[in-house]
């Protein structure tokens, strides 16, 4: 089990392109950390620096207080699961899982026991003698996990392990990985571009953009208290709606539209200033008896999701998505009263894009 | 629509195939028609690369004089390659009118194709003994190219500086004496060694050197050698002595020493004093140092101890043959051309002055023979102090592949001289069975 410290971690290629800049993070033992962000944000590069597959250009990375910058990957006591599984095609499932143990010169019996344990956990017992080619995608992913598990390593690294699976299998493997983590309690760093995976699996999420950390926090924190417009927009699906306007007295004004902001939610000292407000879809809804902040809008698209509708519309040129309980018929093209729950709104500075608290 | 496309494709492929076949056919037709013109076409398939250009010029001259004759020359160089090429030329059905043969074995092999040349003027003019190898039942089947001879080519300056008079070298003893003198003065003379023995060139040892000691046994008659079922090696001791002398005083290792090292690198640059080579080496030496080639070299005989110690081996390296299977007019034109080449005034001049041949025919102005090696060969031939060339009468491949290889073994100390002689004898007998 391990405690990680990343201090000012930086990666530059050929002294020109900066992939990761001043990455600071402390990971406690048993944590399941998810790095999330759009492609090219530096999350994989960071992971590879942790693994030792990339040199660290500047800064320090340590495990349990021991500096790891110049330690070979094989000596870092880490296990890694790759996006394309990276199974050795010429070895059977058993041999794939036993490979690292064999290199450590572990006694045969112990190898056998460990591999069997892992296979049991992952439901791979019947496939031990197969070659990877004869396995389905999900099974291959399990073998890749198994290969990591048998190592009994201090740290698990997973680089988009589910992105090659179909959506149903992805959901299933997601829970399996979570269960595995609860069972083994190994410190894990998981890289994904899928915010759903991040939200469902992580104990803490690290959101990155352009090589810089945007926010670190629990799924709830980053969802409810996003530090900036990027995080707010990235986490949550459908994404948060943003409206640009101005504070005038107790109201938020954009164009001809005026929305009243409750006193408790009103940001201080912003009267008369430009501002961006963010409202999640669940906070643009319909309530039968609502009086305040209700706007009649034209519904452009209505999607029935089963228990609720996602409705797409526009006010003052801003498109937005709202969410309405599906206890009555609703169709596109109608005019419909939507409630903007301004007490749930988040306020952002239009210049810095930082949230105003 | 699809159907249509398919048919179009089929048509196209058919067209391609037929046009290809037609092209092949056409090629044949064209060649045929060219031969049928008013002119007589004489195809010459010859091997001497060295005089290709001069030969072509002379042929051009002949064509001008005889507008109804068209001569096409193909030159394929080097002994072995020529034999193979000639065989394929015949096998292709495109037989040449004039080609080259080497000796009795070739005469036997090509017997079905050789037209008699007995009553040609050239055959008439050929020097005594030059037609032996190509005469079957008193019918002459080939005309000599030229004469060539070999011996020990020496460096005049080095001999002078060492105080040796070449004229005094008349037998093996005096040769050995001279070699020892040269060897003792290596430092002052600035030479690496006395000899350069090219053991790698099996024709130098297995054909030329051996010929010197085998020819006496067969009375200098190539046909005697060709007809003999056994070989005695009467002069094998003398043979060994000369070989040992060359080897002991040569730059080592002799087994990997080749012609270009021997002639160009070592002799022409005056790093050795004597080499065993023939008049053809003149060109190679002149290529490095014309001045040296012109005035600095001479040729000594290879002494056969206990026999003739002053004879220079002189012979005919190659013969012209005429293909009798072609049209009569082509055969006739071929004969006429060869006669012209060797007996007309223009031809004679070309042979000596352009080709730089040592003529194998009478009636030449030999004062035009300019290079010292050819002169030595010619003089020896005039004086009758020659040893015949019988190696054309060796069993096929025997000289180089058997004897030459065995000599390499001997030079590498992998075999004794007795073993060399015994295996050569056995090989001779087994191939004459």
């Amino acid at each position, binding site marked *: 089990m391990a405690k990680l410290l990343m201090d000012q971690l930086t990666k530059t290629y050929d002294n020109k392109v900066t992939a990761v800049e001043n990455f600071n993070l402390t990971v406690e033992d048993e944590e399941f950390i998810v790095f999330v962000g759009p492609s090219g944000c530096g999350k994989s590069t960071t992971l590879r620096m942790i*693994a030792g597959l990339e040199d660290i250009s500047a800064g320090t990375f340590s495990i349990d207080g021991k500096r790891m910058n110049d330690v070979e990957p094989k000596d870092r006591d880490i296990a890694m699961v790759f996006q394309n599984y990276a199974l050795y095609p010429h070895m059977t499932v058993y041999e794939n899982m036993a490979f690292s143990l064999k290199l450590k010169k572990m006694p045969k019996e112990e190898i056998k026991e460990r591999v069997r344990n892992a296979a049991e956990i992952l439901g791979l017992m019947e496939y031990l003698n197969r070659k990877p080619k004869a396995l389905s995608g999900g099974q291959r992913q399990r073998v890749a996990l198994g290969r990591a598990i048998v190592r009994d390593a201090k740290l698990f690294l997973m680089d988009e392990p589910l992105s090659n699976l179909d959506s149903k299998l992805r959901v299933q493997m997601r829970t399996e990985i979570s269960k595995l983590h609860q069972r083994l309690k190994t410190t894990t760093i998981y890289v994904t571009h899928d915010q759903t995976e991040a939200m469902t699996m992580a104990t803490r999420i690290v959101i990155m953009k352009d090589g810089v950390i945007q926010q670190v926090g629990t799924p709830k924190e980053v969802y409810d208290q996003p530090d900036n417009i990027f995080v707010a927009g990235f986490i949550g699906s459908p994404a948060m709606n943003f409206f640009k306007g101005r504070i005038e007295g107790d109201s938020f004004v954009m164009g001809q539209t005026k929305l009243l902001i409750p006193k408790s939610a009103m940001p201080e000292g912003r009267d008369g200033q430009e501002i961006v407000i963010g409202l999640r879809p669940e906070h643009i809804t319909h309530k039968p008896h609502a009086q305040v902040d209700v706007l009649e809008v034209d519904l452009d698209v209505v999607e029935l999701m089963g228990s609720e509708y996602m409705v797409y519309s526009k006010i003052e040129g801003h498109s937005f998505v709202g969410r309405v309980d599906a206890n009555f018929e609703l169709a596109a093209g109608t005019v419909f009263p939507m409630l903007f729950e301004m007490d749930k709104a988040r306020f952002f500075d239009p210049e810095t894009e930082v949230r105003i608290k | 629509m699809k159907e249509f496309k398919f048919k179009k494709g089929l048509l196209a492929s058919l067209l391609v195939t037929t046009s290809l076949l037609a092209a092949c056919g056409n090629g044949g037709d064209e060649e045929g028609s060219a031969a049928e013109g008013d002119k007589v076409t004489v195809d010459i398939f010859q091997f001497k690369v060295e005089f290709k250009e001069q030969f072509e010029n002379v042929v051009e001259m002949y064509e001008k004089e005889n507008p109804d004759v068209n001569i096409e020359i193909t030159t394929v160089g080097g002994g072995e390659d020529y034999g193979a090429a000639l065989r394929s030329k015949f096998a292709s059905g495109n037989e040449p009118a004039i080609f080259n043969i080497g000796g009795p074995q070739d005469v036997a092999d090509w017997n079905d194709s050789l037209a008699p040349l007995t009553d040609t003027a050239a055959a008439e003019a050929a020097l005594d003994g030059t037609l032996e190898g190509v005469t079957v039942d008193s019918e002459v089947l080939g005309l000599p190219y030229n004469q060539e001879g070999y011996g020990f080519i020496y460096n005049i300056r080095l001999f002078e500086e060492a105080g040796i008079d070449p004229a005094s070298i008349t037998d093996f003893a005096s040769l050995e004496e001279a070699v020892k003198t040269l060897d003792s003065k290596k430092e002052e003379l600035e030479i690496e060694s006395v000899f350069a023995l090219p053991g790698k060139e099996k024709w130098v040892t297995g054909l030329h050197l051996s010929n010197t000691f085998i020819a006496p046994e067969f009375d200098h008659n190539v046909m005697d050698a060709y007809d003999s079922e056994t070989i005695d090696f009467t002069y094998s001791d003398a043979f060994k002595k000369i070989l040992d002398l060359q080897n002991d005083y040569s730059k080592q290792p002799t087994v990997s020493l080749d012609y270009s090292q021997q002639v160009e690198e070592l002799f022409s640059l005056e790093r050795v004093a004597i080499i065993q080579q023939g008049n053809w080496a003149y060109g190679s030496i002149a290529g490095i140092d014309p001045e040296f080639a012109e005035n600095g070299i001479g040729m000594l005989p290879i002494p056969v101890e206990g026999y003739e110690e002053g004879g220079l081996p002189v012979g005919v390296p190659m013969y012209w043959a005429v293909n009798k299977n072609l049209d009569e007019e082509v055969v006739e034109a071929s004969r006429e051309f060869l006669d012209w080449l060797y007996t007309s005034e223009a031809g004679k001049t070309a042979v000596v002055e352009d080709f730089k041949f040592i003529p194998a025919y009478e009636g030449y102005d030999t004062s035009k023979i300019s290079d010292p090696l050819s002169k030595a060969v010619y003089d020896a031939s005039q004086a009758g102090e020659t040893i015949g060339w019988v190696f054309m009468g060796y069993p*096929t491949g025997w000289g180089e*592949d058997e004897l030459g290889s065995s000599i390499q073994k001997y030079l590498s100390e992998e075999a004794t001289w007795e073993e060399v002689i015994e295996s050569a004898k056995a090989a001779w007998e087994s191939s004459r069975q």
Partner: protein
Amino acid sequence: MRTKDFAYWLFLAPVLIALTLVVVVPMLLGVYYSFTSWNGITTGGFVGFQNYIDLFKDERFLDSLWFTTKFSVVSVILINFIGLSLALIVTSRIKSSTLLRTTFFMPNLIGGLILGFIWQFIFVKVFASVGEMVGMESLQVWLATTETGFWGLVILMSWQMSGYIMVIYIAYLQGLPNELLEASEIDGASTFQRFRYIIFPLVAPAFTVSMFLTLSNTFKLYDQNLSLTGGGPYNSTEMVAMEIFNTAFVQNAFAYAQAKAIIFFVIVAIVALFQVYWNKRREVEM
């Protein structure tokens, strides 16, 4: 599935005809001639299996066959070893690897004959000069003995072919997924272990191809043999191809040479097929 109709055969015809004309017919003719006493000019009589009986008693032929076999074994091992090593070097992260690749490949662009003469110069002249300078007798007799002739040929062949084989290995090495190598690195494999357990088994198909190429090339070697040693000294470095050529074109024993060529063909075919079969079994599909 359509039946093989007229059009099918029509489209196949050009290939079939070409193949028949240039491969099948000469092959059959060759077999036929090997039973005669053909001397290159006249076919001569039919001699049955006499040529085949003779050649198994022909020491020179058997010697050359043995020499060729030794040469092939040593060369195949060396060429593949060097080729793979070079490929590993130029695919690693060193600078100027493109330049190195080109350089290593270059010898392959020089014709065998020329190469033979170049190396002859090196062995005979350069080695001798160096030998003289450092006083090493053994460097002064290159190509003059059977052993130096043998190693001279091996060196020449390795020098020429390694670059070519390297290219094949490079193709396969670059086809290896990087993730596999990284996975093994994390699994704790040292550089050697990674090579032994991961790279080596995965480039097995390259072995099949390279072994086939080197084997058939070394077995059929002619021009380098001719220009470097010419079979000398005393025909002891004469390989089969050259021996056959000499039998045919020097001794004019065409039918006999043809019989040798057929035996040689059978041997090369068996060795090559066996090699491919054996190697194929070890291959892995990615």
